């Protein structure tokens, strides 16, 4: 056999590493190159907006795979390497340093970048966003400085990242204002009853929440000093953390002519519009069977899509259809979400709304489609299994604290055993 060019993976985050390892697990013996544009070896990002803000540590403590582990699987890691372009006709990558990397097949795991504010003053110092280890360290330091100087931290955006930063800033003793453009927190992903619970908790911890806030400009000389909103108010700021979502990084793919729509378009086997190129993780937009586009920014999505992508590169179909899940830590509340609540027509709850320690069950036409659990670990774990197996309690059962969700799982197993 003629020796083949390596399979090249662009992006050395959660998805990229998983593609490389899954190629080995699937029996691929050829060369694998993992190309990353950061200087750190692959690391886990979720703690960056949570624990890490409180106690930043050494980067190696977030290690996703050490050099030794990658070498053992013959995965060649190239760090600090920016890919400038994909030359599909020649099957090679052009690196920013002028080097060229030929590939036999290509996987894109380019991730997402923090959506930037495009407003006057957005480029002032101490206007920060969170994506990398360096970002997290900068935000942690800025919060500590604000706490020491008695200056407020202003968070723009009341979504996961913004609220996790707000909770951490309160723990570190800084005054915090959250400016949210919509009428409630996390409004794109949760029901009002969940938003309200988080509003109460953040206010009880002393966070100032402002809804319907249209930020018009940031003021300061050199460093940011205040944030102005359309209603004429001006909020003093020692630093500003911008948490207004992410932009899937599809720039390389789009420039190379792959189909993109705010993300690299992939099917449920992670295949792009070019059969020799796959994509996985935050950089993708997945076409669902009903035609809708799904953009998921989560570790689970990165890992599962990556497994599909590796299989697809080897000519196998491994569709990813498990129920999506997410989590967030704010103060002592563990929020765990499973399923996609989009399109729900009924919400029922079980548990204590005031504490809060409850779950919100989302139904569509009487079938369970998603569950948000606040410090209700067991509800989450059981709901995850129900959704993965296509099982649904009735809304009445979900709302009845005496009804055991587990019983549906037991029944399903019995049914299988009887049928066998």
């Amino acid at each position: 056999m003629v020796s083949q060019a390596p399979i090249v993976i662009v992006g050395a985050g959660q998805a990229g590493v998983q593609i490389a390892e899954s190629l080995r697990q699937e029996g691929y013996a050829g060369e694998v190159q993992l190309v990353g544009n950061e200087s750190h070896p692959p690391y886990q990002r979720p703690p960056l907006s949570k624990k890490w803000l409180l106690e930043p540590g050494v980067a190696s403590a977030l290690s996703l795979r050490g050099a030794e582990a990658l070498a053992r699987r013959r995965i060649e890691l190239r760090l600090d390497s920016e890919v400038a372009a994909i030359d599909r006709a020649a099957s090679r990558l052009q690196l920013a340093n002028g080097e060229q990397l030929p590939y036999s097949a290509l996987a894109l795991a380019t991730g997402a970048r923090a959506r930037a504010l495009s407003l006057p003053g957005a480029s002032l110092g101490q206007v920060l966003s969170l994506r990398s280890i360096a970002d997290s360290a900068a935000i942690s330091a800025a919060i500590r400085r604000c706490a020491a100087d008695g200056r407020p931290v202003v968070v723009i955006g009341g979504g996961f990242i913004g609220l996790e930063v707000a909770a951490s800033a309160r723990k570190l003793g800084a005054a915090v204002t959250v400016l949210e453009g919509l009428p409630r927190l996390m409004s794109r992903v949760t029901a009002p009853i969940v938003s309200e619970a988080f509003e109460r908790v953040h206010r009880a911890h002393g966070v100032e929440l402002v809804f319907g806030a249209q930020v018009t400009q940031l003021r300061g000389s050199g460093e940011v000093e205040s944030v102005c909103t359309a209603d004429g108010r001006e909020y003093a700021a020692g630093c500003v953390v911008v948490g207004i979502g992410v932009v899937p990084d599809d720039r390389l793919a789009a420039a190379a002519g792959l189909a993109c729509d705010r993300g690299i378009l992939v099917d449920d086997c992670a295949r792009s519009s070019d059969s020799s190129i796959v994509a996985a993780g935050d950089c993708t937009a997945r076409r669902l069977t009903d035609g809708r586009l799904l953009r998921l920014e989560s570790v689970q999505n990165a890992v599962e899509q990556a497994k599909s992508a590796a299989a697809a590169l080897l000519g196998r179909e491994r569709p990813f259809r498990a129920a999506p899940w997410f989590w967030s830590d704010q103060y002592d509340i563990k929020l765990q979400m499973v399923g996609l609540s989009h399109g729900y027509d009924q919400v029922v709850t079980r548990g204590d709304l005031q504490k809060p320690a409850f779950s919100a069950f989302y139904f569509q036409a009487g079938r369970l489609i998603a569950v948000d659990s606040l410090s209700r670990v067991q509800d989450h774990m059981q709901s995850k299994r129900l959704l993965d197996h296509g099982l649904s309690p009735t809304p009445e059962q979900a709302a009845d604290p005496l009804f055991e969700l587990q019983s549906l799982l037991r029944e399903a197993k019995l049914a299988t055993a009887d049928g066998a």
Partner: protein
Amino acid sequence: MPRVTCIEPDGHARALSVDAGSSVMRAAVAAGVDGIEAQCGGLLACATCHCYVQPPWLDKLPPPSDDENLMLGNVAAERRPNSRLSCQLIVEPALDGLTVQFPDRQS
């Protein structure tokens, strides 16, 4: 540095040197041990770092928290009396020699 042995689903044993104060999960992930996913990165949110603690170590570990216990009730592989989440196993010098086995599936 305390040594921890991780047994992979196929029975292969990997001996790791772990910084005291770090978790078994952290060490196993960084070393690329097979059989662990650890999707949430150690925040006790996913139960994909499930392991079986080998004798005689179970009794030398602090017992699981309520949340860990509830998560263990719904792990993907079989829950056994020696099931723990490896992100909650903080390695200390007294645990030198700790041995855990990872199951064949986590999700």
